[in-house]
């Protein structure tokens, strides 16, 4: 092929990758919905968790603190931000203490006698009314008189204010200038996003929108806005992880290019080596888009990691080119072995497809599609672009010496068994946890931010993110009744300091039964008028001034009880909707808790309600999902390993040869596990995936070292290829192992260790005879 044709083909290929990549980027929906990632729920709590995780009332809250300016300015900023967020479609509510709950309650005014608990303990008789009216006289002399006066004619017992107080946050920060302030003088706000708390994409949009609103306020520059809450942590974590990954990517790309130039003394590998991998990736994504339409972010990250194996394909081709022989011929000779590796791994990943977990199926489709595409590109496209070699890599200075050194290393037969035994012993007996079930431990929140979150949460009385009180019953009314029933027990728990505060659905809406009971206690018009007249005797109120009150009580006597549907249309509806929902035929009430000090104290409550009420530990439930996911992965990996053994044995047509390939792989994997265990590192899903990538790379090393060529120069080329592959993997993942972000460190350390062990063991465990044969 002429140079012009090669360049044209190269550019066409590049353009195709860009085109498909663009198409995929616009069509594939990368979700952060945990349901796309974990196995189906096995119990009701997991189901609730999957439905509610991130959507739950606590996790969607963002806590805001504005500091660094005068109190007056801070209060202005708080009001400005409150007004802006109130009209932002990304946010379902915002509060800064300025809201007048009395006006909110006014919308539900006709129902006040059914909603307020006054009638549970009192009745509207002459004695009670007189005491109330005397209080009102005193109120009218207070500086707050003008606040109350407009209500008094229709609501002399101030039920509207009682409701406003009942619905106000239990622990409010102090009000300065009409808005919340912390003890440290920060203006405080709390806002609820519409997006789920653990949807980093949507949270990032909401947070950007919030920051834009803030920046547009006059004087915002002089003050400082601090955001806290699960959504913010998620966004920060992915931002930090990405920033660090990008930083390392720059370093490793430069290093990788220098290494390619050094190894091949040509710019061609630099220009084309990434093409098969990129092709595999875009095809993998395209398959995900076509088959599933969406993929979970973690699946994509895992898939991309596993696809790293494909980076070796073009490197093998470059190392094995011979002077005077065109690339097509060289690749054709190399292909059987490469194809063995690709097909074996692809077959192994079929186990993931059979797992039945959406996330793992996506992983399988992406990885198999990607690897096969990268292989095909390497076999049929790459050689058309790559010109014949100008130099034989076998002639690389020092290579022959290295081969000789490796061939002469002692290879005691007992060594693998000793290493295996020692490795197993470490894995089994090393102290410390084996598994890391807390995914968030891999992207930890800085301690200072956690402390600040706890401080703001306490100041605002915001609910705990970790615990929810779950109430289950057959219908919504039964849930509300249950909620009313347990309220005294919850108060008792607060008194015992088992928790700081709670909010139950019945706080907003009493059950229909309770409403009817209150209704039944409302006196008829004649009785009320008589009692009122008696109560007013001697007091300075004008006669007939409370006629609106008498009318309203009369009207309330015949009201149908307020239903959840109707309540949810009120300004406070969103709060109830977040606490009362249908789930799988049942109705579930969610109570938010704050400052849970003694989770065990809830066992008694759960027992007393025969399990209808229990404490849901979202952290534990999430971890149980992760455990379930890991079990599926482990099963899939086990089956994949068996499939791989079968495929390799079949391809090599000899169990003995297969043992030479699979032995080092197994032992190396064992050693990586042993090192991680000895270092006290609990294993996460990311470690497992990294181990799998390392094993995929190890398969290449072992396959190529096991190959009988009876050609010294071809063996040298194999060594050259393997050394380049090992060096590049060590470069990329070794740098990643230095990261401060635990998830990147986990991947980097595991793969780098794996590559080291796989290489060493595939050299040491290659059939010694034939290593020395050709020399």
């Amino acid at each position, binding site marked *: 092929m002429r140079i012009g044709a090669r360049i044209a083909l190269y550019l066409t290929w590049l353009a195709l990758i860009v085109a498909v990549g663009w198409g995929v980027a616009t069509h594939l929906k990368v979700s952060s919905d945990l349901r796309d990632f974990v196995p189906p729920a096995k119990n009701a709590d997991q189901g609730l968790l999957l439905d509610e995780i991130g959507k739950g009332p606590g996790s969607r809250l963002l806590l805001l603190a504005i500091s660094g300016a005068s109190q*007056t300015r801070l209060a202005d900023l708080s009001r400005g931000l409150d007004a802006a967020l109130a009209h932002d479609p990304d946010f379902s509510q915002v509060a800064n203490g300025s809201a007048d709950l009395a006006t909110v309650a006014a919308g539900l005014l006709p129902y006040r006698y059914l909603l307020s608990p006054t009638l549970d303990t009192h009745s509207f008789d002459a004695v009670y009314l007189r005491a109330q009216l005397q209080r009102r006289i005193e109120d*009218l002399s*207070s*500086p707050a008189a003008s*606040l109350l006066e407009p209500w008094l004619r229709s609501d002399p017992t101030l039920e509207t204010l009682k409701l406003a107080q009942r619905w106000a946050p239990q622990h409010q920060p102090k*009000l300065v200038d*009409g808005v919340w302030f912390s003890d440290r003088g920060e203006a405080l706000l709390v806002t609820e996003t519409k997006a789920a708390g653990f949807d980093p994409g949507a949270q990032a949009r909401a947070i950007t929108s919030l920051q834009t609103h803030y920046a547009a306020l006059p004087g915002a520059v002089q003050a400082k806005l601090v955001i806290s809450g699960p959504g913010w942590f998620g966004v920060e974590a992915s931002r930090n992880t990405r920033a660090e990954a990008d930083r390392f990517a720059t370093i490793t790309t430069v290093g990788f290019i220098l290494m390619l130039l050094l190894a091949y003394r040509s710019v061609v590998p630099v220009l084309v080596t990434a093409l098969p991998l990129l092709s595999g990736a875009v095809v993998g994504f395209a398959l995900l888009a076509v088959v599933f339409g969406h993929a979970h972010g973690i699946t994509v990250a895992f898939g991309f990691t596993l696809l790293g194996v494909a980076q070796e394909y073009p490197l093998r081709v470059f190392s094995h080119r011979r002077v005077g022989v065109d690339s097509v011929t060289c690749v054709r000779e190399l292909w059987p072995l490469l194809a063995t590796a690709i097909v074996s791994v692809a077959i192994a990943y079929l186990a993931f497809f059979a797992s039945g977990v959406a996330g793992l199926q996506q992983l399988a489709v992406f990885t198999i599609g990607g690897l096969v595409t990268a292989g095909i590109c390497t076999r049929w496209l790459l050689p058309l672009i790559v010109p014949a070699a100008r130099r034989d890599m076998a002639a690389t200075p020092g290579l022959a010496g290295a081969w000789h050194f490796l061939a002469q290393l002692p290879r005691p037969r007992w060594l693998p068994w000793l290493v295996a035994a020692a490795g197993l012993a470490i894995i089994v007996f090393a102290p410390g946890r084996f598994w890391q079930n807390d995914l968030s431990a891999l992207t930890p929140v800085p301690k200072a931010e956690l402390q600040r979150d706890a401080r703001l949460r306490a100041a605002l009385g915001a609910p705990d993110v970790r615990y929810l009180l779950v109430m289950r019953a057959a219908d919504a009314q039964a849930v509300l009744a249950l909620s009313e029933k347990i309220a005294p027990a919850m108060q008792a728990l607060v008194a015992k300091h088992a928790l700081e505060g709670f909010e139950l659905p019945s706080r907003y809406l009493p059950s229909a039964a309770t409403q009817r009971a209150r209704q039944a206690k409302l006196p008829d018009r004649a009785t009320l008028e008589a009692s009122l007249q008696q109560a007013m005797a001697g007091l300075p109120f004008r006669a007939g001034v409370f006629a609106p009150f008498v009318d309203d009580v009369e009207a309330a006597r015949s009201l149908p009880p307020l239903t959840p549907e109707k309540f949810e249309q009120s300004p406070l509806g969103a709060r109830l909707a977040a606490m009362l929902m249908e789930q799988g035929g049942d109705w579930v009430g969610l109570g938010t808790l704050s400052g849970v000090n003694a989770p065990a104290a809830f066992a008694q409550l759960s027992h007393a309600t025969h399990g209808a009420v229990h404490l849901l530990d979202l952290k534990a439930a999430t971890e149980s999902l992760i455990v379930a996911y890991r079990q599926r992965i482990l099963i899939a990996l086990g089956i994949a390993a068996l499939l791989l053994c079968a495929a390799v044995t079949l391809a090599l047509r000899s169990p003995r040869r297969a043992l030479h390939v699979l032995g080092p792989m197994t032992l190396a994997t064992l050693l990586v596990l042993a090192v991680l265990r000895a270092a006290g590192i609990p294993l996460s899903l990311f470690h497992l995936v990294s181990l799998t990538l390392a094993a995929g790379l190890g398969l290449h090393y072992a396959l190529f070292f096991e190959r009988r060529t009876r050609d010294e120069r071809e063996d040298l080329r194999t060594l050259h290829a393997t050394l380049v592959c090992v060096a590049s993997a060590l470069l990329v993942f070794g740098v990643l192992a230095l990261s401060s972000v635990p998830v990147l460190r986990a991947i980097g350390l595991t793969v780098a260790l794996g590559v080291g062990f796989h290489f060493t063991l595939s050299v040491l465990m290659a059939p010694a005879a034939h290593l020395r044969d050709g020399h």
Partner: protein
Amino acid sequence: MTTLVKRMRRSFPALGLALLAGAAVAAPPTLAESLLAQLAKTPPVSTPFVQVSYRGMLDRPLVVSGTMKWLGADHMERDIEKPFVAVAKIGDGEVSVQRGHGEVHRMPLARAPQAGAMLAGFSALLGGDVKALQQDFSLAADGGDAHWVLTLTPRTDALKRQLASIVIDGRNAEPRCLTVNDANGDTSITLVGELAKAGLRSDAPLLSAVAARCRNSR
């Protein structure tokens, strides 16, 4: 109301109190500014008070009496001693009211315009930041040493919805009465200093009778 309260906050630190033990300065007959400026004193200062409220829903006035204190900065306290005991505190943007030894009820000053107006009236009396006050109110002064009247009329619509005017009567350097006229027609007159000490002659005085006492030397 909010802006009013804010202005008040700003003006308070600059204020000295001249509530009864006022500096012996005669009010210039026409200039409200100089009248206010010359009433300055240093906190804390307290005075007895008698408040008579005339409200539409009541057929006779409410009378309470006690002690009013300006504690400096942006805090004031109003202790009702008769006919019941209640302590009201205004400061930090909120009003708190405690009846007897009962629960303390709090509400933002922004939602209690009357309390804000009272604070505004006092800030004027206490000799403060006339400019800040003028942003929310137009000031008018009338009379002479024997009886002067300072009238604060709201400028903003938000204030006008709540408040018609605040009128302060005084003699020499001594304020005597603070009258808050609500937008809905309700009126409350607070007698301070010597006038409060002297007390009322009736349990249910007519508005005109109280107003006359504010004006008269007797």
